């Protein structure tokens, strides 16, 4: 597995647009098809938004790091924050039949990525989200290519 890129930015909502632009550019350069690329952009945006809102509780001076690793046709994305450890059992989507504002980010991430794993060390600061996505699997890319 090879690390291909590492970016870091502050936990400000106005940082999300340049992050999405960066992810689109990086994924294209790695041969990602358009449909998988938009899924990756969606998941990374939602994950960073969760960090801003739920890990840093809206504070804009927290650091967020995104690492991109590549192995074959798969991209591993690690999103790292340095907030207090989040209770892993609390990371869940709302029930979709309960129509109310909010609570969809985790559902969107789980739906569009191939695998999603949250880790942290109890009693220590920081949280890590690892997500994997195939760059150009035939099934999901046939329509977009």
């Amino acid at each position, binding site marked *: 597995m090879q690390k291909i890129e590492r970016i870091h930015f502050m936990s400000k909502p106005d940082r999300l*647009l340049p992050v999405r632009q960066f992810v689109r550019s990086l994924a294209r350069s790695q041969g990602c098809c358009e449909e998988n690329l938009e899924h990756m952009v969606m998941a990374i*945006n939602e994950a960073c938004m969760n960090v801003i809102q739920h890990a840093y509780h809206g504070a804009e001076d927290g650091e967020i790091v995104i690492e991109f690793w590549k192995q074959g046709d798969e991209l591993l994305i690690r999103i790292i924050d340095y907030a207090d450890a989040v209770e892993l059992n609390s990371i869940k989507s709302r029930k979709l039949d309960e129509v109310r504002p909010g609570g969809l980010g985790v559902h969107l991430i789980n739906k569009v990525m191939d695998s999603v794993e949250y880790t942290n060390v109890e009693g220590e600061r920081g949280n890590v989200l690892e997500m994997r996505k195939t760059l150009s699997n035939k099934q999901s890319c046939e329509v977009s290519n």
Partner: protein
Amino acid sequence: MKFALNTHKKYTVLELSGEIDLNESPIARKEILKVINQGKNLLVDLSGVEYIDSSGVASLVEGFQTARANRLLFALYGVSPSAMQVLQISRLDSVFTIYNSLDDVE
């Protein structure tokens, strides 16, 4: 994100375009609720939306619920493929009233 308001006889159209994310969705939310709180039926034109995240979707859900509580129309119109994908994954495409054409509203 950009927005524009167009008033018709029976409803107001709020045209949203560009990227609606955590930084922009508070503006969308404010405009949506402003129209509904004026007692007007609202159509949200999403044809120019290139990207919408769950915070933008939350603004639409809040508008939908507020309008329903006030017995007003709240519908989406011309939903872009990008926005439709998020609504479908969230299973909200069957919750919102969605029009393809303004002719369908009359």
